[in-house]
């Protein structure tokens, strides 16, 4: 199976590339990147070809492509892949706005290619186990949830809204919003958010606190802030507390760690759990191989999660709740 990668702008690209190298029967055909230095460096590192233009890469008879460009370029790259008949794994957030995301979904459907949103957290072993416990009814009925996906400010294009679509809210809302939708099987109905720029020097939203109302009566909050400082022992977190009628569940997806104390670097966490990027890419590859009609995590999933972030920005502007139907209209 022939897979390509469009752009190493997003740091997750390296993780996906090394995952592709580990999967038997998969050939990483090439890396396209408008930044020649970056593209050549990673092409050399992963022993594959470099392409200046993504059109040239897409012309190599690919089965699938991973899109890890800046958020604002997702649409252009996904539409080109769809047109070339290549299945797509697109980095989150699916897009910078609802309209583009809808166009991407439509194009992939029209050209009969899979559009999978890269939500690796769905493939985290602890998250999957939590989902299993929920599905087995161990918690009874889900009543409420409390999630966090904090991190460090990544800087670079992530803090340039013309490329990223926004800061912490668009970057970090989507993972846990997706997990909450997955756990409950319900859609977000209404969003309230307090959003601000309180930490970074660059003017970008780096603090976000969302409150969500689901269409089945479940409520939740989600902290998506880039509030981890430089010396915090880990990059961030992915946590979810679930309050059920029969019990509670506390999920801390990256808490499989060693505590490491070094004279030079100080205290840090060393993660030893399963590689969720590998599981994600394996899933994408197997969907292609089996000729699946839908990806396991779809473009629609990506759109719904993105719409929650968009609603959060709108809520903060209005200082009031925002209905998801208005955002998705």
């Amino acid at each position: 199976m022939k897979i390509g990668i469009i752009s190493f702008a997003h740091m997750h690209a390296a993780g996906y590339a090394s995952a592709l190298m580990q999967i038997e029967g998969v050939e990483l055909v090439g890396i396209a990147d408008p930044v020649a230095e970056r593209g050549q460096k990673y092409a050399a590192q992963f022993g594959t070809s470099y392409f200046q233009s993504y059109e040239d890469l897409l012309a190599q008879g690919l089965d699938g492509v991973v899109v890890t460009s800046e958020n604002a370029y997702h649409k252009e790259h996904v539409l080109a892949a769809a047109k070339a008949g290549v299945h797509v794994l697109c980095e989150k957030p699916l897009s910078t706005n609802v309209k583009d995301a809808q166009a991407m979904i439509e194009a992939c459907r029209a050209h009969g290619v899979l559009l999978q949103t890269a939500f690796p957290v769905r493939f985290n072993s602890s998250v999957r186990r939590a989902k299993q416990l929920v599905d087995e009814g161990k918690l009874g009925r889900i009543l409420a949830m409390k999630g966090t996906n904090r991190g460090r400010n990544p800087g670079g294009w992530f803090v340039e809204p013309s490329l990223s679509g926004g800061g912490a809210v668009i970057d970090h809302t989507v993972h846990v919003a997706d997990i909450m939708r997955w756990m409950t099987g319900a859609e977000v109905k209404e969003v309230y958010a307090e959003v601000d720029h309180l930490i970074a020097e660059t003017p970008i939203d780096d603090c976000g606190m969302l409150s969500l109302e689901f269409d089945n009566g479940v409520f939740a909050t989600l902290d998506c802030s880039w509030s981890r400082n430089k010396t915090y022992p880990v990059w961030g977190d992915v946590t979810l507390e679930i309050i059920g009628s029969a019990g509670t569940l506390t999920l801390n997806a990256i808490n499989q760690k060693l505590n490491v104390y070094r004279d030079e670097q100080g205290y840090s966490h060393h993660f030893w759990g399963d590689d969720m990027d590998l599981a994600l890419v394996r899933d994408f590859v197997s969907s292609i191989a089996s000729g699946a009609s839908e990806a396991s995590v779809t473009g629609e999933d990506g759109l719904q999660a993105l719409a929650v972030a968009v609603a959060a920005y709108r809520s903060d502007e209005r200082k009031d709740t925002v209905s998801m139907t208005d955002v998705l209209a």
Partner: protein
Amino acid sequence: MLHVLVIGAGTMGSVHAEAYKNMPGVKLVGIADLQADKAALLAAHCECRAFTSYDQALGQLGSEHIDVIDICLPTPLHKSYVLRAADDGKDVICEKPLAGSLADARLMIDYCKQKGVRLFVGQVLRFFPEYQNAKALLDRGAIGSPAVIRAARGGSYPVGWNDWYSDTSASGGVIVDALIHDFDYLRWCFGEVERVFAKSLHGRVQAQLDYALVTLRFQSGVIAHIEGTWAHEGFFMQLEMAGTSGVIDYDSSKDTPLIMRDRGQRPGSRAGVPVPESPLEPSPYARELAHFVSCIQDGSEPLVTAEDAWEALRISLAALESARTGRPVTLNDAARSTSG
């Protein structure tokens, strides 16, 4: 020597009585509770007299032999006892929340002022050394400028007299009864609150569970998230302050010096439940009460005033309103200045 009468022999009454028992300059003169056996048991332990009512205590002890009335009753009873104590010219220490409504709380504060008695409210979190130290670090600039704050408090559903906690109109549920601690503490750290948004289980489930998630936006810009739960086991409290250059976090269930686990082999013992403790001498409650006592003795202003308690109640009730209406509630300064 200050003579203190404790009203209520429940959980908080016991904690207060125990604190007075060992407090220099204070004499615990009695404990009054409708439930004679509870009053008697606690009084015996604290070596003071037991009474079945406030009136009986005043009658038998002689009003002139009582200086302070400490009210540890369910919230709906606070008002009538505070007013009676003020009528009798006694300084008052009242457990939180001061009242169930802002109007009642205002009336109680004004009434005590009119009668020339002091009124102290047990917003005890300001006396917990972990919370005091977090504020001191914050004030010292340890995390730079504060940005996102997370606090949490709770455990299992509280058991009280006549199951009064489960009557939300009486207790205010977890938002008023428990989170009022965090609201007061956060206001102490970050100043006045501009906007409140909250969601809670109240009205959504019939089961004896309460769970609330509250977002506060401060005038300073700080964003705070507060979780209140009566849907877990045991008890825990958490605090995290993230600022421009650092993070402080605390979790009572993890940052604890002592955990006892019972194997359940002794008669009457229960297996498997770890009981964490954080021994402090004196306890935060004793520190709080000793502080109030010293304020009575020297006429000084307390670390937490009745007005602070009113403000904390205002935030709590705004959270309840937001949870009920599904909309954010803005706290205006006008209400604050005309009330003070």
